[in-house]
Structure formats: C-alpha cells, structure tokens
C-alpha cells in the first residue's frame, strides 16, 4: 500500500507473489494466530450482539418484565445500565487476549524477517 504507483501485474506474476505470501500464511504459527483470533472474536461478537438485542426485545415485547421494580429502579433500567459494563468488560477481556495476539504476530514477523 505504501507505493501508490501500481503497475498491473500479469496473472503469472500475481501467482508468483501469492505463493510467497501463501507460504507465510500457511505457517503453523500464523494459522494458529488466526484460529486464536477467530476463537475469541466470533464468540465475543455473538455474545455482545445477543446481549444488546436481548434488551431491545425485552423492552419491546415483555413490558411486564421490563417494568418489574428491582431496588430503586426497574429491570429495564438495570439491564440497560448493565450494557455499559458489559461493553467495558468485553473490551477489557479483548485487550488482554489481543496482547497475546501481538506477541504471536511479533514472533511471526521476527522469524519471517
């Protein structure tokens, strides 16, 4: 990307380049990095989306549960407030995982260079 001046490459040249990168991409350490990332990001994304839309569904379709008084406020308010803490916790857990991913990718780059 650093060089904006790109000449169109022939298919053969592209394939030759692709092979070089393919080798890196097929290294077990890189494949492990991708699986590790996917193993975190996919469930984390599903979790936060389900948690968020659960709030909208409960507020929209289960008004009695939403109105239920818990302590000074009601269920709907607490659940909405919990979304903030959920977001912060997911973010914090991700940062911890991402620090591991950083180490993995640094190791791959060192070796590759």
């Amino acid at each position: 990307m650093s060089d904006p001046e790109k000449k169109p490459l022939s298919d053969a040249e592209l394939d030759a380049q692709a092979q070089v990168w393919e080798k890196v991409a097929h290294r077990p350490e890189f494949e492990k990095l991708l699986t590790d990332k996917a193993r975190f990001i996919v469930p984390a994304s599903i979790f936060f989306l389900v948690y968020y839309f659960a709030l909208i569904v409960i507020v929209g379709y289960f008004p009695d549960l939403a109105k239920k008084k818990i302590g000074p406020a009601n269920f709907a308010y607490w659940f909405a407030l919990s979304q903030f803490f959920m977001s912060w916790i997911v973010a914090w857990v991700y940062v911890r995982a991402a620090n591991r991913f950083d180490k993995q990718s640094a190791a791959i780059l060192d070796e590759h260079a």
Partner: protein
Amino acid sequence: MPSTLPLLLAEAAPVKQSPAALIMFLAFVAATLLITWWSARKSSGASAYFAAGRRITGWQNGLAVAGDYMSAASFLGIAGMIATSGYDGFMYSVGFLVAYLTVLLVVAEPLRNLGKYTMADVLAYRLRERPVRAMASLSTLCVSVFYMIAQMVGAGVLVKELLPGIGFNTAVIGVGALMIVYVVFGGMLATTWVQIIKAVLLMSGSLFLSILVMKEFGFSFTQFFDSISAIKQTKDGQETIVNFLTPGMKFKDPLDQISLGLALVLGTAGLPHILIRFYTVPDAKTARVSVIWAMIIIGLFYIMTTFFGFGAAALLPQEAVAANPNMSAPLLAKTLAGDIFFAFISAVAFATILAVVAGLTISASTSFAHDFFTNVIHHGKEHRPGEEVRVARITAFVVGAASIAIAILLGPSINVAFLVGLAFAVAASANLPVILMSVFWKRFTTTGAICGLGVGLVSSIVFILIGPTGMKENPIFPLQNPGIASIPLGLLAAWIGSLVTREHSAEAKFPEMKVRAHTGHGAEEAEPH
C-alpha cells in the same frame, strides 16, 4: 444520530442571558484558532495533513474519537429526549456505546494495518482500485454530507437559542466558516485537538451537571429514582403521575427499535469520519488502545445522561421542557447553578457542534482528494508535489460552503433529523459489509463491492423516502429506520455480486492482505520527529 431525535425541529424558546455565554464562546473560538495556527505551522506533507503525521497517542486519539462522535444531538438531543420521553431516550445512550465493540473487535486494527488515509484504502488493497474507490468515495461523501447538513441546521437553531442576538443564518455561516478554517489550514492535527478540547469540556460540563442534579436529591440514588418514577404531569388539563423509567413513552413499534439498534451497532463501524481517526495513530495496537479510551469516555458520558436527562424531567417545570426539549440541559444548568454555568454549558454545546462538523469536513475532503482525485482521476500519481493536499483543502472549502448554503436554504424549521438516521443506515448497509468482506472473505470481488456499496446506499435512501419520514400518510415501508431491510440487502448484494464474478487478482492478493492485516507487516508508519 437516529431519525427520531427531536433536536432539530424545536421551536426556539426565548432565553434571557448574560454576556457570559458570548465571552465563553469567544474564548473557545480563540483557543481553537490558536491551535489551528500552531497546526498549520507545524504540519507539512500529506501524512501530516491527512493523518496528523500518525503521531497522535492512544489516549489523545481516544478523546478525539469521543469528541468526533458525541454530537450536539447526543448531548442536547438525548438529554431532551429523556426529559420528555424518559427511558426510551436512554435506549439511544446504550446503543451508542455498545456500537464501539464492533469497532474494537473487527474493524479498527485491520483498517489501520491495511490503509493509508481512507476507508477505501482497505477495499482497494486487492480489488480493482478505480471502481471501488469511486464508489466508496461516493458513499463517504453521502454519509458525511447527510450528517453534516443535519449538524449545521441543528447548529443554527441552537446558537440562535443560546445567543439570542444572533440569527439562524449568521449562526450557520459562523459555524461553517470556523470549521472550514480548522480543516483548510490546520488539517487533521487541528481537527484532532479541537475534538480533544471539546471532549474534555463536554465531560467536565456533564459531570458537574450530574453532581448538581444528585445534590438536589441529597446524593441518594433511592431518592433520585423514586422521584423520577413518579413525576407529576399535566395532560389535557388533568394531573397524572408518570413513571419516567417505564419504557414505551416514545417508541411504539419494537421492530423499529430493532432496526435502529442494528443501524447503530453496525453503522458506527462504517462511519468514515470515525474510521479515519485510526490512521492518526502510529500502529494497530495504539488504534486498539484509543478505542478503549474512547469507550471509557463515551460510556461515562452516556451513563451521565441518566442524571441530567431524568434530572431535567424531575427538576424542571414540564412546560419549560416541552417548549423546547433540546434546551433542557442548558436550562437545568441555569436552574441549578445560575447564568455562568448556563453560559458554560452553552459554550460546551457550541464546541460539540464544531468538533463534529470539522471531523465530517475532513473525512469528506480526504476521501475526495485521496480516493477520487488522486486515484480515480490521476491513476494514483500526483502531478505536482503537494497536489493531493491542495485538492483536499479546496474540497474542504467547497464542502463547507455547500453545507452552509444547503443549511440556509433548508432553513431552521426543516426536519433534518432523519438525515442522521440515514447516515447511520448507509454506513451500516453499504460501508461495513464491504469492509468486512474485503478483509475476511477470499472470494470477494470488485463487482461484489460495487453492488454492496450501491445497493446499501440506494436502499437506505429509498426506504427512508417510502417510509414514515418521506411519506406522511400510508407509507409503503412501515419503519422509521431502514436498517433491518437495507443491511441484509447490502450484504446480499455484495455476496451475490461476488459469487457471479471471479477475480483472479483479488484472490491472489488475499494471502498477502491476510498476513498484513493480522500482523501489521508493512503498515504505514508514523512520521519521524
């Protein structure tokens, strides 16, 4: 900000005030102009102008992202909506923070690793550059201009209310001229610092306001919640007790809420003015850190809407809020702490508008100069050194002038709030699907990207036009927010467009892109000191 926000439709309620507001406005303007002058002296070259030399630190960028994101509609609009519609207003607050998980988990880091200045850089990495850049640039300009016109009209209405001596047109021209000056002369560095200062001002104002509200309730949450659960209201001459914590005061159709939720959670990660902020930091790790900072600030801010939103409902007279919901936060400040604090909150609102419109202007002009002018028209070559930056400065001026003209033409009474909903819908339906597919799906093709961007853009606009916003009576599409229909359509178009075509070069470049996206190998580096 989604379509139902009442920010921009309000009729002005005359507010008497001291010259303190004007003095604080001028102090803020003077400070930002000083920053612009300093930035202009410091920066030269494209990476300095478009990306602040990629030397912004994590916490600075976090504050700037927050400052770029929290619009006047967030501050005054949500406060007003909670003050009139209670819990339903708070639902917006929730969506605005949760949306950042999409930014954090899937978009920020690959974007930083693969791109240079714009969202389109990521698409152009392995697809055919000219068509995808042209289309992505169109989508960026649409999102930015829709959003900007909404902000400008809102700014005009607001300044007119905060500083009663100044008319709508004068206010729009003033705001527009300032944002043009920041962006044309100061580039991304000045924009960043305007956003940082605004974020600090907004957070301190909100915190102080929240503390003042809780003081009224003896710092007892029980008293606070008891009081907002039973607010006396007069409706049709009859006095009733309303529980402001009960959902459903505003939103009647849950499907509309789901549609809005989708647009928020997926749209934020496709807003060009937010995405380009990640190019201002040295690397992907710092981009990640900056999202965390942004999430802390944005989260705290939206939690505080509880206090000054519900607080306004409990502490202000019902008529005062109903007369102009958007003035609830400033009015609350005035009631609780007098004229000087009112002036401060007004200046905060003004700073808020300026920081957001500056961010929008620079995202539009960067995309036009970098994607369209340099790469589509000139095949990626600069004919003269510094040409790209010069084109961006001219574009910033043109985009700014056009927004001023359109905002004045539409006038203060027009309902432009739907434009913000439209911006989020386009970002979610057109931009995000193609960004994700280009990073994660090998078989993605140029045709797929064009179809996804085109269908996402057009369907968002069409569903708004044939929905309740565009057709007052018997709308063909029943929902305010097009997301629930336009997002799947955008995705489907990108997917089918890719399946019916085969692009050898896109597939051949996939392994390279994958390695770079996930390791940061060969990513754009920060300028040396």
